[in-house]
């Protein structure tokens, strides 16, 4: 699918962090990922690889912050919004 699933790589392992990513914008110190349904998250990261055939993007990252772009979403309980998560 054209919309991408984004993974973050750490210690050689890839973990899915967002599906249906439609836009990626450079922001100060990182990348803003926005899903087609409006979820927005900021990663202090760089792109490691983009696979357009399989719709996957891998980031190499140090920290993450969450923003909701005015859209209410359930807080994730696995610590993904914790800046120390990645």
């Amino acid at each position, binding site marked *: 699918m*054209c919309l991408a699933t984004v993974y973050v790589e750490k210690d050689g392992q890839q973990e899915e962090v967002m599906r249906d990513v439609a836009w990626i914008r450079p922001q100060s110190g990182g990348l803003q990922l926005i899903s*087609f349904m409006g979820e927005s998250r900021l990663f202090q990261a760089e792109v490691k690889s983009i696979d357009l055939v399989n719709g996957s993007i891998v980031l190499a990252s140090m920290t993450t912050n969450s923003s909701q772009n005015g859209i209410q979403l359930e807080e994730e309980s696995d610590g993904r919004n914790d800046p120390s998560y990645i």
Partner: protein
Amino acid sequence: MKKIAICGKGGSGKSTVVALLAGGLRDRGCRVLVVDSDESNPGIYRMLGLEKRPEPLLELVGGKKKVSQTFSESSESSKSVLMQEKIRTSDLPSQYVVEKDRIRLVCIGKILQSLEGCACPMGVLNREFLKRLSLGEDEVALVDMEAGIEHFGRGVETSVDSVLAVTEPSFDSLELAEKINSLATEVEMKSAWAILNKVASEEIALRLREELEGRGIPVIGSIGYDPEVFQAGLEGRPIHNSEAERDIEEVLNQLLRGGRSCA
């Protein structure tokens, strides 16, 4: 059985089955929401006896060209009803829903121009709309899918309860029904059936049933070849007083688990 995706090969009669089911469910007291998920064919509204098409839900987020701006500017419009955790049909602005006789129609989106890009955003919107769609006790959603199986790749079927594979008397259609059943199993669908369509004789119906059931696919009913369906399709109007309407009763009995009504 609240959210039912109607799938199948191109030309197998998906929209016809949707229209027949919608009328039958309405007659049994259900409120029916038809979700037009076909990115190509525009005419389901005529088959349902509606006078116009609804505006596509994709326009609620600005359409394909403006949706990026919608989300990047954090504007009021980005707080669209489509981003609600639960969406009721009554939440949708009136131009996005066309209704007549307890049958409502919404449309996800249509391909409008050459070279406009693929339909993936519509697939995502379809999946997320169906996932968030909150139906009343007496409400049923019938999803008229795009021909083929690409929508499985987009995960649309993860948001519905049941899949109906419309199967016409052809080997290709049988094979696709088997593939649909297999894909439905992969996403742990609660129920998946085949429904026979355009069946010209009892002998052909029996042969198709045996073939499908031999492949492990339950058959929920059979619609005979009906000149009225052909004529209605030719004239772009609803089906009236047809054998097909009587044939769909068997399917409705199973969908409603033997009950006579939605209530």
